[in-house]
């Protein structure tokens, strides 16, 4: 087993704090929880403008793209801050599908044209894989034929909002990576009711759809990189979800009175919140370590990502559970935003591999074989 090398910086820089402030301000002004809840109903509020502001005005769609390719030339440390804020606001913006999954796949594949349009925010992308795909376990359900791509991919995140799909497809000599325009003929996107409608999924059907092959011969590596980066950054979102849950719960139990005293003065609740705080703090360290190791190109990144996913996803769910239990009845209402966070937390736990997938992967990485 290899020991981690280099010194990880587990704190936030002033620049990162400033970035956090601007993202938090945008969501506070434009993504109020009661507006977000409308995504579950027929008369939906439209958040396209929020995404456009985030992507273009704040210039965050190209965070992970080098400046030479039209991006901001930042890295996962900064992108993680954005994801933390997306989690904290359960913001319905396709940052993960477009600016992370599709972008990193194209970047690693060596594609530049679509990448530029994603980086500048003029187009929104989606990686055509089921959101639940575990790391290293991808099998193509789309194949490359003589007259285009054919096949079906279920549960694709960000498909509804995508202008362009990045599609891993089985070619005659192995996996290939293609781009497909949303406007292409014989492409059908069918939205499905999602547990988390703030990150809606859709099924995507291809029937001889024209496409452009964009990989440089190693589409497998591009997919692995996108999944790895996605795992690293999803942990940051889970941290943000957990932070909202504990902070909101703390404010509530200090205010809510029963038996003539604040319910937060009861030791049964104080101890649960102390334990939860420890978990959320720990998730913060795990998520930050993953973001920092990835940003530094540290060889420990796969271990850091697997640890972060195995740990942070459960913490987000636990924080949402505690948020609901310690609020009591009010948290079961549609009106109170706790449910938005539970739905995001549980969906995030299944996204990019459930915790047991990451533990199994980790076992291989640290030489603790199952049998």
């Amino acid at each position, binding site marked *: 087993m290899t020991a981690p090398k280099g010194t990880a910086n587990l704190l936030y820089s002033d620049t990162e704090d400033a970035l956090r402030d601007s993202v938090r301000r945008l969501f506070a002004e434009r993504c109020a929880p009661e507006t977000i809840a409308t995504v579950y109903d027929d008369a939906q509020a439209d958040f396209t403008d929020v995404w456009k502001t985030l992507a273009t005005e704040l210039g965050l769609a190209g965070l992970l793209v080098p400046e030479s390719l039209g991006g901001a030339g930042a890295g996962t440390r900064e992108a993680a801050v954005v994801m933390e804020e997306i989690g904290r606001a359960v913001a319905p913006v396709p940052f993960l599908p477009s600016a992370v999954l599709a972008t990193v796949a194209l970047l690693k594949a060596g594609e530049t044209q679509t990448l530029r349009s994603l980086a500048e925010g003029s187009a929104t992308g989606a990686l055509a894989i089921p959101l639940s795909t575990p790391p290293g376990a991808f099998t193509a359900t789309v194949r490359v034929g003589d007259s285009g791509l054919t096949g079906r991919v279920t549960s694709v995140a960000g498909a509804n909002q995508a202008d362009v799909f990045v599609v891993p497809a089985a070619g005659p000599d192995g996996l290939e990576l293609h781009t497909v325009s949303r406007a292409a003929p014989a492409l059908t996107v069918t939205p499905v009711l999602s547990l988390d409608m703030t990150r809606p999924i859709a099924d995507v059907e291809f029937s001889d759809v024209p496409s452009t092959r964009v990989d440089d011969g190693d589409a497998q590596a591009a997919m692995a990189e996108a999944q790895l980066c996605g795992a690293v950054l999803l942990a940051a979102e889970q941290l943000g979800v957990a932070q909202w849950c504990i902070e909101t719960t703390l404010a509530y139990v200090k205010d809510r009175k029963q038996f003539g005293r604040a319910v937060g003065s009861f030791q049964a609740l104080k*101890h649960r919140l*102390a334990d939860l705080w*420890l978990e959320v703090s*720990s998730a913060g*360290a795990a998520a930050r370590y993953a973001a920092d190791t990835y940003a530094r190109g540290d060889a420990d990144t796969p271990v850091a990502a697997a*640890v972060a996913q195995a740990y942070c996803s459960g913490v987000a769910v636990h924080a949402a559970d505690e948020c609901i239990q310690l609020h009591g009845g009010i948290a079961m209402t549609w009106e109170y935003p706790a449910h938005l966070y539970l739905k995001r937390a549980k969906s995030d736990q299944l996204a990019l591999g459930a915790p047991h997938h990451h*533990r199994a992967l980790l076992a291989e990485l*640290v030489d603790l074989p*199952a049998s």
Partner: protein
Amino acid sequence: MTFDEQPIAHDLDARVRELLAAHDPERADPQEFLGARFDAGLAWVQFPEGHGGLGVPQSFQEQVNAALAAAGAPAPEVDTNGIGHGMAAPTIVAVGTEEQKRKFLRPLYTGEHVYCQLFSEPGAGSDLAALATRAVRDGDDWIVNGQKVWTSGAHNARMAILVARTDPNVPKHAGLTYFLCDMTDPGVEVRPLRQITGEAEFNEVFLTDVRVPDANRLGAEGQGWRVATTTLNNERVAIGSGAPREGGMIGKVASAWREQPALRSPAVHDELMRVWVESEVARLTGERLRQQLAAGQPGPEGSAMKLAFARLAQAISGFEMELHGEAGLRYDDWTLRRPDRVDFTGRGPGYRYLRAKGNSIEGGTSEILRNVIAERVLGLPPEHRVDKDIPWKDLSR
């Protein structure tokens, strides 16, 4: 390292070279070498000049330790004098007089003075401030009477940090004073306290008319609680300090898994990976805490690390027993041994399992630590304290 820090690093290198040139690290008597190291300001670099340090950031200590270790120099016995290094020294340097620093820090560092902690009592555990050991002024001395308990290493200690009641007529926190007590005083009696592991790492200490000079009083009369709190925060950080990856309890289990394929099964494997992940995350959390505290004093956040450590140690040592199956039915040694150091991961799985039960009790129970986090970190309302304003002598006991 920043530009400003380079001159410090160079200066330390030069001092290390000078020390090694004057004292052959491989031939010098360890105590003599450590004394010279102390005098050179290389013992605790963050301490003031003349008191074992140079007043530079603590982060430079590692550089000094590494250079001296590479030269084969004797290192201070931190393991056998954990109370001295982790608690007494930081407290002496924080509140001691110049004279006290001069008198006590050097022998502590060289190992001449091993310390133990005379805090807990049969009637004052979690409620430490209720302690009943009395210190009564007699000229230039204090006469101390009482009983202390859970005193690790008292049988090897030359000195003790002691908290005693000097004023029973004020509320409990206000009547305490902190002393450095000489364990060779004829009134000090140390009796082994046998534990569930069979050994006696702890002791009961009976204090009968023990004479403590007022010159050994640390901090003002009545300030003992404040001084003790500084020390306890240090203890919690010391106990909660993270190890390298797979350090501590998880390393034992991981090694067993790798070396004994016969132990492996799918259900147990997922359990193993769960505790591996939690151990790694605890390590990272400790590392991040250290980065956050790098400049300042340890605060209540240290309590969180100790809480995590205790929970994990118990979970993993229990898991380890199940993993070993039949071998878990056996035990290595029930005799009343008196170890000279605390070793949570030493000996066999059975010992580790039993010893870990103390981790959530010693140095602040996990319940008290949860209160500390809830109140001081999360700002939740404090527990009701019915005894807060009542003179200690009037409390029900």
